[in-house]
């Protein structure tokens, strides 16, 4: 009933990891504000700490790798925690682990392990360190298939472990037509950290399982952008594009395409897109030493986010209709309707991909839309429920978490007036509508006006949700409601 003494530790661990991905976008957004040379040097040592990244269809995360007798070890409990219910108990030199329905028994200093009643030999011995069970990284390819009941792929030299079919492939092609640029297409949306230095632009992928193309060195036969190299070390993949000129990266196609182009050097536009130009320290930025990602001039009028997708199915609306499918159908219908009215629309996903909430808000915020619309579907109740974010009360601050969670605060008034107009349009079409506020991510993390729509059946049947007539009615109401506040949305600073 009570927290056992190990509980709080577990809590810290998971919180820190979450923070890692959650704060990433916030960090990108505020990178230019917090610019300090001393920080760079004082923290560089920990940045080099060895780690193992784990990619599954539901999540990606990293655990730290500890050296022991010249070998790399990881804490097994820590590694499994994000994959399912797991408990462990130390008893003298023995260590018992239970993961889902599998049980394993280890003994300190021994290579023999008993898993699900069978003996298995590890290449190096198990280590019990202060109650923590450490296993050699090289043993994971033996242990994990037994515990998880499915094959895994371990790439030891790069510190990456692939659990499901999570690999993200990419192709890179030079587009010689003006504006010239290197177009890199990924099989799933990506959100790398991007840094440039003279002669090079680097993209580091820690949360996406980007894997090597056929060759690790790609050449393009172009004078400005001659080549790119792929490498993977210490739990992250990197694509480094070499160039004779400063480069910048822009995202499109819902985060699936990154275009690398020569930066218009020293032009006023280049200054405005380089966040480093706004450092409060007033330090002059050297050419080509800019960080570009979060504020590229990619503008869409509306970003539509069909919630859920991939392994994250959302609600089961009926035996054969998942929420993720319904939301995508509504979003596609809305996009068509927006485009008919000449309004540019970005879909956060247009296939069945798994995206984290951070990836969704990252894609939306980079597109700088006038409005973001998040779509959910429900079999409960009738009609439409419109939501704006529940942002913390003004003046309240609990540190960085809440700051990132209240990215929406500055736009909340515009969001609410958009919601009011949408409600009016739904009512005109006699669709029952409620306007509510909700503690719903990523609504809080969106910097533009943002609303969420939860569509429930009209007359009571779940089949309404796949009816093209109902989808069209909803799409028309949304577009009409947003057109109504268009001037206000565009005028927003």
């Amino acid at each position: 009933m009570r927290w056992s003494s190990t509980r709080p530790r577990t809590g810290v661990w998971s919180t820190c990891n979450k923070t890692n991905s959650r704060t990433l976008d916030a960090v990108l957004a505020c990178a230019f504000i917090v610019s300090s040379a001393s920080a760079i040097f004082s923290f560089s040592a920990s940045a080099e700490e060895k780690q193992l990244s784990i990619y599954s269809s539901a999540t990606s995360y990293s655990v730290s790798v500890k050296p022991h007798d010249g070998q790399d070890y990881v804490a097994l409990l820590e590694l499994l925690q994000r994959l399912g219910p797991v408990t462990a108990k130390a008893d003298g030199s023995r260590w018992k682990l239970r993961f889902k329905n599998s049980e394993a028994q280890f003994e300190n200093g021994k290579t023999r392990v008993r898993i699900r009643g069978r003996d298995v030999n590890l290449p190096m011995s198990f280590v019990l360190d202060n109650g923590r069970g450490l296993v050699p990284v090289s043993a994971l390819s033996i242990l994990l298939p037994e515990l998880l009941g499915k094959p895994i792929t371990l790439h030891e030299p790069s510190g990456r472990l692939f659990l499901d079919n999570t690999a993200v492939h990419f192709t890179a092609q030079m587009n010689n037509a003006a504006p010239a640029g290197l177009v890199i297409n990924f099989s799933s949306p990506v959100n790398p950290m991007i840094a440039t230095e003279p002669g090079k632009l680097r993209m580091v992928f820690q949360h996406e399982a980007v894997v090597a193309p056929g060759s690790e060195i790609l050449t393009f036969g172009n004078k400005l952008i001659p080549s790119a190299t792929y490498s993977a070390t210490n739990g992250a993949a990197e694509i480094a594009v070499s160039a004779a000129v400063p480069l910048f990266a822009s995202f499109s196609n819902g985060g699936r395409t990154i275009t690398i182009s020569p930066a218009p050097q020293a032009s006023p536009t280049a200054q405005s897109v380089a966040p480093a130009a706004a450092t409060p320290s007033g330090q002059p930025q050297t050419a080509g030493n800019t960080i570009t990602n979060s504020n590229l001039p990619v503008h869409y009028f509306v970003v539509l986010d069909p919630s859920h997708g991939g392994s994250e199915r959302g609600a089961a609306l009926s035996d054969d209709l998942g929420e993720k499918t319904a939301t995508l159908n509504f979003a596609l219908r809305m996009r068509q309707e927006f485009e008919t009215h000449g309004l540019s629309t970005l879909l956060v996903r247009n296939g069945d991909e798994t995206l984290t909430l951070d990836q969704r808000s990252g894609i939306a915020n980079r597109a700088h839309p006038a409005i973001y619309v998040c779509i959910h579907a429900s079999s409960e109740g009738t009609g439409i429920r419109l939501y704006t974010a529940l942002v913390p009360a003004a003046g309240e601050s609990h540190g960085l978490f809440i700051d990132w969670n209240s990215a929406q605060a500055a736009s909340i008034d515009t969001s609410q007036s958009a919601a009011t107009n949408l409600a009016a349009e739904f009512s005109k079409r006699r669709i029952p509508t409620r306007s509510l506020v909700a503690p719903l991510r990523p609504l809080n993390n969106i910097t533009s006006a943002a609303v969420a729509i939860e569509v429930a059946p009209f007359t009571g049947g779940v089949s309404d949700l796949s009816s093209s007539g109902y989808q069209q009615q909803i799409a028309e109401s949304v577009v009409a409601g947003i057109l109504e506040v268009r001037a206000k949305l565009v005028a927003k600073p």
Partner: protein
Amino acid sequence: MIPRHLIIGVAVMFVVALSTGAYVWHMQGSLAKSVPDADQTHPLPPPGNGPSEQVTLYVAHDDTGSLRPQSAQIPLSGGRQERAEQLVKTLLQLYLGESSPHPIAEGAEVRAVYLVDPGLAVVDLNTAFAEKHRSGILVEELTVASLVQTLSSNIPGINRIKFLVEGEERESLAGHADLSRFYDVAGVDRMISQMQTGQ
């Protein structure tokens, strides 16, 4: 070259790790304090026997998508923490009952409620509560609002509530209601007042 993003990221994470550490340390401290308290109280009498007190539960109703206050008797207890746990247990019994206005999954439990000064309550749900919870914005929001309102209106001094599942932070209840945040009671009041009127 270490990308500046990475360096700043690490610096920010360091600060975050420190503050999270401080938060958990603080929590542990409070837990240590509260456990002897619990030992001093007598075992709770089963409902229906012994002294009891009247409280107001804020019960979620799926048919209207809103909360309704409802009186209930809970066993009289010595500590605030026991009282908090009794409150949520009584609320859950209602949701698990046959004519539940807001059914939750069989096996759903609140493992514990920890009161951490100043003003923070930590509600630790079990796996079944979250894993088997119905998925949807409104349905999840009703559960969260009902727990927050029931606790904050019966236990003076609670102004923030944090939900954990099996002692760990979780991204959302069942795909929608955000569990990574701290719920401030004033914010939830706004959410509920919209719920009661938002047509």
